[in-house]
């Protein structure tokens, strides 16, 4: 039902003469994979699907060259980009609008109320070496995983992505079309940060050194982040070279710590950096700790309101003075 509604919306949107393309999800090339896709014709809408395998935050593509509305053309009136967004992804769009990264008018948002996506690493551990194209659906309190005609049910909690377990906004906060019925959110108590907070300074440093020793500086975390979109990243520069090119624990740590601080008050908890990391570095632990600090200091959460002033871009006399150097 929801699948047909999604395709109908997509066909309608792709028929508009001001729409350049639609960024959505289609079945992946093998196994339990879904692939992002960029569609241009209403006939393509048939390919679209939404399932717990739709992990990617498609808002990241809005700032990529050849796709995104940041590249403005004067001749072509097909300037709008349509895209499928889950609740978490919609916060990225809201925040991009809030910090003037994109204009609201330049995107057509097809909102998808999302009951949760899988933790792909856990899923592939449980169902290793699948070549045949499989599917994952939600059936009550379980994921129904179908491979080569056989369906196996696994309780939601065992395979649900961490971010979904604390998702307050499964229904997109901003949309033009909604492909599904709104869903109720969960509580976010920041319990996930407690364990890390309990560590002493020495232990923390030790732990993160061990993690960053593994970093290979592929920059997947940076490139997939919807809010890491500076056209001239200071960390890429050769002069001044803030981060050396040598891949050492020290330089890796510097890169990740600077990036985490730049995302303070901006990270919307889509968890994409951690999902794409091929070396299994728990990057969201850093982002979550900073999100908690920002919430406690300023009572602010990014991505809830496109009109909100980005918290670290403004000053009010009521701001906490504790952290001013």
């Amino acid at each position, binding site marked *: 039902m929801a699948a047909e509604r999604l395709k109908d919306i997509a066909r309608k949107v792709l028929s508009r003469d001001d729409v350049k393309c639609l960024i959505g999800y289609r079945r*992946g*090339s*093998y*196994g339990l*994979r*879904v*692939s*992002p*896709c*960029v569609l241009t014709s209403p006939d393509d809408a048939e390919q679209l699907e939404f399932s717990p395998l739709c992990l*990617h935050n498609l808002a*990241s*593509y809005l700032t*990529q*060259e*050849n*796709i995104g509305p940041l590249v403005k053309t004067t001749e072509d009136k097909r300037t709008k980009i349509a895209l499928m967004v889950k609740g978490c992804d919609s916060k990225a769009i809201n925040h991009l609008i809030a910090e003037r990264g994109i204009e609201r008018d330049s995107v057509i948002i097809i909102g998808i109320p999302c009951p949760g996506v899988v933790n792909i690493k856990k899923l592939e551990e449980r169902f*290793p*070496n*699948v*070549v045949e194209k499989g599917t994952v659906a939600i059936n009550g309190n379980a994921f129904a995983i179908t491979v080569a005609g056989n369906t196996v049910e696994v309780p939601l909690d065992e395979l649900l992505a961490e971010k979904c377990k604390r998702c307050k906004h499964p229904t997109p906060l901003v949309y033009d079309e909604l492909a599904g019925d709104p869903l109720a959110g969960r509580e976010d108590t920041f319990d996930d940060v407690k364990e890390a907070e309990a560590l002493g300074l020495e232990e923390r440093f030790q732990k993160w050194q*061990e993690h960053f020793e*593994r970093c*290979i*500086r*592929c*920059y*997947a975390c*940076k*490139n*997939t982040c919807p809010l890491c979109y500076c056209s001239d990243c200071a960390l*890429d520069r050769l002069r001044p070279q803030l981060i*050396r*090119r*040598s*891949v*050492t624990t020290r330089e890796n740590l510097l890169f990740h710590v600077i990036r985490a601080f730049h995302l303070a008050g901006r990270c919307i908890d889509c968890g*994409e950096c951690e*999902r*794409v990391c*091929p070396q*299994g570095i728990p990057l969201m632990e850093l982002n979550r700790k900073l999100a908690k600090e920002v919430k406690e200091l300023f009572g602010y959460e990014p991505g809830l309101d496109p009109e909100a002033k980005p918290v670290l871009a403004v000053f009010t006399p009521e701001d906490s003075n504790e952290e001013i150097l």
Partner: protein
Amino acid sequence: MDTAILKKEKLIAFLKSLNAARLIAPVAKKGKTSFEVIADPGAVTLDLNDYSASPKKVVFPQTETLFAFKRQKDNLTVAPADQADATVVFGIRPCDARSFAILDRLFDGDFKDPYYLNKREQTLLIGLACTEPTNRCFCPSLGGSPASEEGLDMLFTDIGDEYYISLLTERGKKAHAQAAALVTEPTTEQRAKKDQADKKSLAKIRRQVSLDGIHEKLPRIFESDAWMELANKCLGCGICTYYCPTCHCFDIQDEGDVTEGRRIRVWDSCMFEEFTRHTSGANPRHTRAERLRNRVLHKFSYYPNNLGYIACVGCGRCIEQCPVNVDIIEILDRVRELNE
């Protein structure tokens, strides 16, 4: 003797008998298996399915010092790169060993790369034939197999309680001679088991790609709009190239100041925007479409043209690790279907 049988319980003794200064083998580390220098051969983990990274770094480290310098008043000292120790890599997959043979073509080609060659000459490669190929594997499509011998000095094949050892080079035989007391001559039955193991493993590979006409086609579709379509979802990160056992591009940088520093080379990736950016700011490969096209053409067109080898061994790591399902098999399938 070109073949031998080693009982599994004698593996540790066998590895010790090779007397290498460095033994590099797969070990479990933070939930993953990776190739590390190990002091104790007992730590070897032979769960081949779990190899996420290739041991390319043994001969081509991600960061390596070409020379270091130090200046004190008028006294300038230059320290050359470290010389490699005699190294044994045990447990390398046959696909990864083929990648060493492919890299040799470049680093031991017109220009003899001393940093690579020094390490390569000091490295003995002992492969382990794959018994459980994964869903990313498609080595037969690239001319390999789970028991390919190319690039190896020895190949171990698991035949139950024993390893069947194939001695493939003079160096392999010489190293093996030190362990001669530990092995026996294979029986006809054991030879049959080896053949069966190879066939069984080959039959388990389920992904494949046809390279028919690809080499001729690629230069002709250089300007195709399809590259844009194929690259639209690419994030432009370096995962595919950094996990690739044959990718070998590097950057050279000087780090330090006028009193002390070093010249390093460090992996670089053609998928990064910065890779071809000129000093002027101009960039001939500004878009992801141009960069993805370059990755495909380098592997399947330029490298075969220049060095006679396709620079892909079908290990499928780029497919498995890509966060957005950019799939080289899907790309090549598309290329074959394109009209010129």
